[in-house]
């Protein structure tokens, strides 16, 4: 056992951070899904990370994907990243790997609105339990109405019905695309984004607490504020260890634990960061609310708290 990141993994993380910060200026992109950025991510190999090199991929595994998605989550990169990654790496959807095609997902079982439907080129339909195969449909085959999304950077559509292939059970199934595997990997990559966001909100809170002065001293010197920040880090580091472990073990229970704890680290981290920011945290101008809103959204996608807790209970 050696749980540490390898030099290659550290370099991958560093390189991803540089790429993303270079393209976004280090701020959450305010304009929603940016197709040029999506292409750049494709060129950099983000979607093809786990594809074998012979198929034009990078030939790396889930642990590397998790590190990259953590960086994406840190910057609140908008878009259906997990669905597009699965489409490229697990389903071989043309155009998904190089970022020319954006793929979003409908998980029919959980009633979560579909993200970025209008911008998507293809739609991954996940339904059924063990042994079911994922299906690939066209976004326009959904009867869907826009929802006023709580996350201003993630447009959502509520689905009321389906037409065409999307409406026919078993139609357009992708051979070998096991729904359970896709759900598990989608949950893990979403957990990785939550982890990145949670790590970022600790940084923001700590940076603010160091310079903001009240009562003649930095507010970070008060234990009430310190303990909020320590709690944030505790949740991040606990979530990190199980997210990375789940990438290695590919175990269903461990993935549920990763999603549960990463969701909690992201949601509570963003809330505590808003608290440390005070009045500033309640403004639209500060980016912190974007972390909370994205965290709320991601917490509902690819296994929410109830699903995770119930499956973890069943596995005891």
């Amino acid at each position: 056992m050696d749980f540490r990141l390898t030099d290659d993994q550290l370099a991958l993380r560093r390189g991803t951070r540089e790429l993303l910060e270079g393209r976004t200026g280090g701020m959450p992109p305010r304009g929603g899904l940016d197709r040029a950025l999506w292409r750049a991510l494709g060129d950099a190999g983000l979607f093809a990370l786990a594809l074998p090199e012979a198929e034009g991929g990078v030939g790396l595994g889930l642990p590397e994907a998790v590190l990259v998605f953590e960086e994406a989550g840190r910057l609140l990169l908008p878009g259906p990243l997990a669905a597009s990654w699965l489409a490229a790496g697990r389903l071989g959807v043309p155009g998904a790997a190089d970022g020319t095609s954006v793929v979003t997902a409908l998980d029919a079982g959980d009633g979560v609105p579909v993200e970025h439907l209008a911008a998507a080129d293809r739609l991954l339909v996940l339904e059924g339990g063990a042994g079911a195969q994922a299906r690939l449909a066209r976004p326009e085959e959904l009867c869907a109405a826009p929802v006023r999304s709580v996350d201003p950077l993630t447009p959502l559509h509520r689905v009321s019905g389906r037409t065409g292939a999307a409406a026919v059970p078993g139609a357009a199934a992708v051979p070998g695309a096991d729904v359970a595997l896709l759900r598990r990997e989608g949950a893990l990559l979403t957990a990785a984004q939550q982890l990145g966001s949670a790590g970022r909100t600790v940084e923001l809170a700590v940076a603010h607490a160091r310079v903001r002065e009240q009562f003649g001293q930095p507010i970070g010197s008060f234990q009430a504020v310190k303990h909020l920040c320590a709690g944030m880090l505790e949740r991040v580091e606990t979530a990190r260890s199980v997210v990375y472990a789940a990438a290695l073990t590919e175990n269903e229970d461990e993935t549920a634990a990763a999603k549960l704890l990463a969701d909690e680290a992201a949601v509570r981290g963003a809330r505590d960061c808003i608290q440390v920011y005070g009045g500033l945290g309640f403004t639209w101008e500060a980016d912190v609310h974007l972390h909370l809103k994205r965290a709320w959204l991601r917490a509902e996608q690819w296994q929410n708290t109830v699903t995770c807790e119930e499956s973890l209970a069943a596995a005891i």
Partner: protein
Amino acid sequence: MELGDTAEEAEFRHALRAWLAGALPALPPAPDPEDWPARRAYDMEWQRALYDAGYAGLHWPRDAGGQGAPPGRHLIFLEETERAGAPYVGAGFVGLLHAGPTIAAEGTAAQRARWLPPILRGEEVWCQGFSEPDAGSDLAALRTRAVPDGNGDYVVTGSKIWTSHAQVADWCELLVRTDPQAPRHRGITWLALPMDAPGVTVRPLRTLAGTEEFAEVFLDEVRVPAANRVGAEDDGWRVTLVTLSFERGTAFAGEVVACRRLLRELAATARSSGRWEDAVLRRRLGRLHAEFTALWRLVQWNVSEAGHTGRQRCTGAPGPGAPGMGVPGTGVPGAGASVFKLRYSHARQELYDAAAEVLGPDGALDAAADWTAGRLSSLAYTIAAGTSQIQRNIVAERVLGLPKGR
């Protein structure tokens, strides 16, 4: 990132399992928890068996009589012994996990030769004399005085409190004040106190669980030879920090495995009693499953970090999001150990609170039930070895770099 066993680790695990399968049935029945001499004898016998089989001091350096195994090996040991239902370290705790590692790191060759082998062989029991009635979380406020008598000995007067195993200990790792004029962290010295020295009085204290788990130790002009000083005079605070980080880093690792077993027992009880139909309770147990899964990974993470750093002082705090939680360059579990200790102690309390919900009033209010005893004992976890509040200060100041203050 690699969580699986290496070939050497797999071989070690296999051999240990085989040995445990043979050794455990030969153990005598567990002693009465109130019978301290019997507890000591039982724990020492187990330690002797480990020593004879080559499993004593796995993670201690070779020149300290240990096996010099990487920390990962020690983790496998904790995992496998717990799985097999082997005895805990018990009365050997302070010697094996606090005092021994400290002497190994800071002691002279003669001191190592005198004190380390009896710890490994299960012949001598140590206790810890750190806290005082007026020096708890603020340990550096300790006032027990040691005055050089001019002939090379110290004369020690004061009192210590919350001292586990004091009733049956041979030695006490004792923190004393040698320079009352110096800044308070600088005038402290680490001494090995023989518990049978004239002037040492032990008064057992009853815990809220009703048992005499710890004691008060009174020291009235006790003579301690200067040869019993580990580290330089007035340098005891630094020597102590080594011990404390060992305590927080590795002491609870095996218990995480135990908690996973307890959770399985609890779920089985809930399933057979019908309590499992309560979705709120079921989800509470599901969350605990996530919690102990993550805590074990956190242990592995910390141990991986600690296993690959040298034994140097901490030179800088990593920022948030830094991959390492062990303090880089220290060779001992660092502030990451505080994160673990913080999380684990609360998770353990939550486990016993959930157990009370599973058992219902009939079980939860019966002080004779194991679960109730465990629930009471778990209250110590957020207090002992640094309260949760102190751990949060450590995380905030040493890891996150927030300014010191109130």
